[in-house]
């Protein structure tokens, strides 16, 4: 069986400082893993490097996701393959509504998967259905991304992005 995520001998540096020194990890489908450690031990670095943040440099080693080598890909390709980061402190993007953002993101992934992008009406139906599951007020859709959101609301936003 191909593991979902396979990290081999990973060495990562940030601003010329080595943070992760030779990490090996295999996660199979259906498994739940928790990574724990003191501040500065490299938990966020690992998350960011998996998401391919440009400030985190892979010095050596290899990352495979569902059998595909993603060591040298762009962040958007990572997302297209089905892996993305849930941000601890998401940034605000003024003037861009949640519905617009999520639709753009979902359609970008669909395009990669050779699926027809959702039109505005279809998409609204799907997202409203998901929102009903989470009991969330509909004005949320038309608010700007993470602007003036409470911490809890920001977390809920993440769930929508995961579930669509």
């Amino acid at each position, binding site marked *: 069986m191909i593991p979902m995520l396979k990290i081999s001998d990973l060495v990562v540096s940030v601003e010329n400082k080595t943070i992760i020194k030779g990490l090996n990890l295999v996660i199979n489908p259906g498994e739940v893993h928790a990574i724990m450690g003191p501040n500065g031990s490299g938990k966020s670095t690992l998350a960011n490097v998996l*998401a*391919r*943040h*440009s*400030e985190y440099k892979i010095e050596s080693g290899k990352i495979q996701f569902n059998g595909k080598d993603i060591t040298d890909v*762009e*962040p*958007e390709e*990572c*997302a*297209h393959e089905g892996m*993305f*980061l849930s*941000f601890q402190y*998401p*940034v605000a*993007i*003024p*003037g*861009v509504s949640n519905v*617009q*953002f999520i639709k*753009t*993101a979902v359609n*970008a*992934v669909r395009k*990669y998967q050779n699926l027809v992008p959702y039109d505005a009406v279809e998409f609204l139906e799907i997202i409203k259905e998901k929102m009903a599951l989470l009991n969330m007020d509909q004005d949320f859709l038309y608010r*700007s991304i993470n602007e003036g959101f409470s911490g809890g609301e920001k977390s809920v936003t993440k769930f929508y*992005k995961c579930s669509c």
Partner: protein
Amino acid sequence: MTKKSELNVIVEQQYTAGFATDVASDNAPPGLNEDIIRFISHKKNEPEFMLEWRLKAYQHWLTLKEPTWANVTYPTINYQDIIYYSAPKPKNLKSLDEVDPEILKTYEKLGIPLREQEWLAGVAVDAVFDSVSVATTFKEKLARAGVIFCSISEAIQKYPDLIQKYFGSVVPYSDNFFACLNAAVFTDGSFCYIPEGVRCPMELSTYFRINAVATGQFERTLIIAEPGSYVSYLEGCSAPMRDENQLHAAVVELIALDNAEIKYSTVQNWYPGDKEGKGGIYNFVTKRGHCRGKNSKISWTQIETGSAITWKYPSVILLGENSIGEFYSVALTNNYQQADTGTKMIHIGANTSSTIIAKGIAAGKSQNTFRGLVDVSPRAANAKNFTQCDSLLLGDKCGAHTVPTIKSKNQFANIAHEATTTKISEEQLFYCRQRGISEEDAISLIVNGFCKQVFKELPMEFAVEAQKLLAVNLEGAVG
């Protein structure tokens, strides 16, 4: 006689001879003098008063100096090298194969249908057939409402009373260097007259009128809204009309009487020059509205994405009590473009109010300046103004500048100014890319969000096109 003046004589001689030949071929030779102005006026079959006005403007122009206060630099313009009259005729290209593929690529990205593409590029007349019939239907509908919508040349001949009453009453020929030049040599433009109590049944657009008459580089537009009337006017077209001409100096005058409202929207997408900053239009435009009547309203919305240089300050003079002036602007500059744009709100009547929302986006090596004036006269009790100027920088080689001026001579005025300058942050881009959105689409998404307040003022179809335009013009803005 020195060598130089000998040369002048020869040039003069050739010039006169060339002139005679060119009359036959409907083109004036390059250069500016009284003969050229007489020639233009004659070609347009104008009444005597218009020729006199043009000549007075020309004499005044000779005494003026080109303004240098704007935050733009460009090589000296030789006004004697410019052709001031060239007969409006189609370019006579036989098919789209003859059109610059770069232009076609842009049209395609904007999603303009093929037929329209042919028309925009100036391909044969039969391609425009559809639009012409559309234009005719429009004319009938407007005529039934009593709205006059025609070219300014036609209006000068047909409605001399209205012209003599209003033409040049908002922007007099002596106003500024470029407006004065325009007054002397303007070749065409639009004229709209909305009778008392009439709500214009459709959005008026140059798009339809331009089919009949190709407008030149010195357009002049006059819109008159009689008491209680309303009109929404759309200027420019969504496609990048590449103009070979270098200088574009237009004048727009708006007049709103009691309880009248004029909404004027522009999407300006002239050729901005190439990536190295070569070529492109110099756009020196004077746009001004008079809120003459009580409770009148003038609203300017502009999306400026084109031109190598933009020098433009659509303004409102608030004369009537309770009158309202608005200015919503998005100015995007990329590569080597320079934009110095903004507005003037002059409060003269009591209880007048104005709103200014300006969004400047600078990318590449461009310079983007907002220049604004809010002036409250002693009579303008309870005048209110709210100004918000936001600048967004892409990259580290561009510049955004804000030059607001506030003059209040009335202690009961209420003036508020807010300004921000931001950059698209790496974190915002990463956030979008991590959800699968490409870097270019992410920038376009963030920029559109930044401009939202202005886009919502545009008529629906225009708003959609404006978004696409920004995306096209931002291509290659990263890195």
